[in-house]
């Protein structure tokens, strides 16, 4: 039997928690050969990240425990390998891109140093490593890479951090790359770049890629084979085409059916008194202009999608609107009152009406609070919303609405998967029953089935309660399904603003067209004929819904 590069056999992982043992991964097996790309698809919380962490030897043991199985790299079991040898494997032979780039980058070292370290650790000279780091940063499309080398993680946008992680992982040209949701925070153009880079490297070095993603488009674009996970077990495996065209397992079918971009486009109603009216917002970081005069209106019950290049200032705008970062100038009239001119105490009263779901869910959850505490904090702060007696019930309800269960209530954030944390953050924002929610990549870490469920929930809230949304996303099909208006941003400016139909069907700007063109289709056969006219393309990438 020809030896596989990586072979996972009957791997089982469990976690000890106060409430009992959680079986995160239950006896899964798969293999991967040189130069091959295997995608792991699956529900959020199904054990994708845990199983790949096991390969990297990164599970905290205890409380975690690999209760069975073996992980063979070139036939040698990584689980029984001596520590020193094991360490050499990491980085050099196997590298990993983490799902959650902000917490996985060391906050006190410059990005350049961290990338170079990956190489110096394995014996490369310092100057060479920096040079290589610079080259990699350029390859992943970070603007001004020279300066970026000296910047610290918190000075980057979400997508930029993710690209830094990618650069770091690719630094040593590993034999095996484990990429955990490497493109969740990337806009489609950058995503295309990154995927191209991966493919190039694969061609050059024969690197094998284990990619974890929920984006069927990405799967179609890059993967050779797919395995599908659900609730810790492996439910289906096959080539991309097999799985897409002929899914066997019900879960897989559900997953594929749930792919977004198939709904009816919203037609916004007549413009009335705007809920929020933003004029000429500017923000600079040092000499860098992150926002160069943003203006738009938002009606009650409307959704404004914000799409655009990674690093174009989407999160900055969101933060400015909420006064988390003070904007340099501009006004934001909320029901006629300027948010930027409010005193702290006035602002405090308005807080409950404006909520935000942050781009980095892990960091936005207090690690010392249980899910119950996190969500019910809203009511502690604003006691008039809900009487205390009903808190538990309501928390359970909210959790169910975002696809979690009541028994998660007493768990702490670190005990969840990335997508689960994102849903906790959404539930928390909903708990306050606000009038506007700013969602910064709020559904990007969710698998399509859960994503559909959450989007549906949000849509329902909008319809029934008139909640308005500012919806920052890079996933155009989702945007298409959910938003009324789209705002396309590039380098701190709005390059295009219009209704969903206007922008998707008759994009005026070249950048918007490029964006739409770069959007990936989940159909593996669709990619051949990709660079068609954008407007038509948007139609093509929508498979028929199987009702």
């Amino acid at each position: 039997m020809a030896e596989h590069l990586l072979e996972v056999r009957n791997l089982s992982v469990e976690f000890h928690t106060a409430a009992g043992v959680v079986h995160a991964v239950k006896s899964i097996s798969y293999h991967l050969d040189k130069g091959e790309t295997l995608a792991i698809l699956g529900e959020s919380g199904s054990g994708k990240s845990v199983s790949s962490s096991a390969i990297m030897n990164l599970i905290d043991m205890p409380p975690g425990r690999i209760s069975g199985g073996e992980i063979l790299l070139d036939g040698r079991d990584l689980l029984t390998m001596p520590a020193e040898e094991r360490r050499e494997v990491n980085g050099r032979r196997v590298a990993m891109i983490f799902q959650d780039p902000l917490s996985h980058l060391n906050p006190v070292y410059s990005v350049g140093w961290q990338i170079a370290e990956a190489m110096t650790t394995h014996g490369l000279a310092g100057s060479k490593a920096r040079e290589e780091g610079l080259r990699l940063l350029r390859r992943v499309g970070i603007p001004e890479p020279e300066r970026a080398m000296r910047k610290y993680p918190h000075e980057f946008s979400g997508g930029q951090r993710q690209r830094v992680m990618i650069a770091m992982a690719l630094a040593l040209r590993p034999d095996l790359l484990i990429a955990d949701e490497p493109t969740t925070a990337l806009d489609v153009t950058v995503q295309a770049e990154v995927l191209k880079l991966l493919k190039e490297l694969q061609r050059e070095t024969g690197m094998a890629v284990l990619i974890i993603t929920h984006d069927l488009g990405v799967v179609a674009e890059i993967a050779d084979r797919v395995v599908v996970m659900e609730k810790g077990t492996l439910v289906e495996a096959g080539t991309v085409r097999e799985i897409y065209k002929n899914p066997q397992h019900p879960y897989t079918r559900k997953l594929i059916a749930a792919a977004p971009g198939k709904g009816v486009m919203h037609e916004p109603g007549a413009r009335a008194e705007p809920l929020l009216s933003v004029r000429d917002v500017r923000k600079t970081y040092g000499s860098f202009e992150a926002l160069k005069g943003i203006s738009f209106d938002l009606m009650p019950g409307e959704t404004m999608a914000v799409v655009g290049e990674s690093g174009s200032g989407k999160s900055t705008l969101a933060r400015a609107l909420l006064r988390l970062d003070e904007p340099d100038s501009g006004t934001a009239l909320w029901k006629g009152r300027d948010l930027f001119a409010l005193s702290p105490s006035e602002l405090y009263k308005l807080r409950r009406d404006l909520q935000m779901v942050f781009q980095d869910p892990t960091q936005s959850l207090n690690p010392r609070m249980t899910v119950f505490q996190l969500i019910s904090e809203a009511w502690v702060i604003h006691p008039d919303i809900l009487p205390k007696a009903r808190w538990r019930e309501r928390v359970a309800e909210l959790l169910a609405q975002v696809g979690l269960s009541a028994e998660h209530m007493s768990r702490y954030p670190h005990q969840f998967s990335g997508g689960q944390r994102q849903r906790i953050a959404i539930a928390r924002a909903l708990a306050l029953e606000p009038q506007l929610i700013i969602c910064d990549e709020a559904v990007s870490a969710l698998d399509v089935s859960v994503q559909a469920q959450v989007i549906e929930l949000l849509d329902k809230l909008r319809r029934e309660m008139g909640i308005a949304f500012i919806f920052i996303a890079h996933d155009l099909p989702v945007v298409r399904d959910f938003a009324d208006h789209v705002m396309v941003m590039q380098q701190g400016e709005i390059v295009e603003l219009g209704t969903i139909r206007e922008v998707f069907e008759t994009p005026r700007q070249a950048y918007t067209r490029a964006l739409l063109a770069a959007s990936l289709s989940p159909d593996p056969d669709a990619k051949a004929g990709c660079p068609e006219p954008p407007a038509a393309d948007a139609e093509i990438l929508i498979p028929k819904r199987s009702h």
Partner: protein
Amino acid sequence: MTLATTDNVIAAEPSLLVRMMRMLLADKFALSAAIFLLVILAIAIIGPSWLGDLATKQNLRGRNLPPFDWTRTWVWWMGADALGRPLFARIIVAAQNTLMVAAGAVILSSVIGTVLGLIAGFSSPRTGQIIMRLADVIMSFPSLLIAVIVLYVLGSSILNLMLVLAITRIPVYLRTTRAEVLEIRERMFVQAARVMGASSKRILFRHILPVVLPTLTTLATLDFAYVMLAESALSFLGIGIQPPEITWGLMISQGRQYLTNAWWLSFWPGLAIILTTMSLNLLSNWMRIALDPVQRWRLEMKGGKNG
């Protein structure tokens, strides 16, 4: 805090108290420490009324009696001091004053220091600057001078002594807290709390303080030892607690001159201080783990095995 009530633990889980007890049982060191501290506390409460007379009964002819004379009653097992008083009894009686001064000073300074530190780190730069420079002033004011001034102006008493020691220890807590707040307030979960409309008070005490608390607890437990010893130094200079009041610190400073020929005079009170500090520290290390959800498994796993 309102959130820490029992109803946030779902039915399947044991109550908070039971969980803490289990975690305590899981750590043998912390358990012994807790028991030791309880004993000391009990002693501090009943000591003076129980052995007060015995501890002050002098016998010049039996001075500096060596320890380990098992033929006598237990109060003599640690030997006798320079006036022939049983050391064991004196240590027990001294526990009250000692703990009062130490706990008082540590609690006072840590609470004041922490609150000021939180304010300095979180409020406007101007307020922060004022508080910090105030800390500089206290820090560079020699504690001895504060002691002389306070005790000279207000007179020497346990309360004043506590006050003096408390004042001098404020800056550590203040500076430590502020430094951490500067970093923590930039974290995303703090911003998330702001978005929810949490007041500064809530953010400081509910979100930021728990992160700083372990460090502060470590400092506070170590300060316990510091305060007990500083109090001994002050006594020696004539501006601290003076006989006939007794504290461990005073006993140490009285035993100082007999160090080379009657070591037990300062050894036992010294040991009492060391053991108390050590117990407090073991307990605070345990608490650090028990209160940190990310670390808690260390105790729960063990508890599981034992149970």
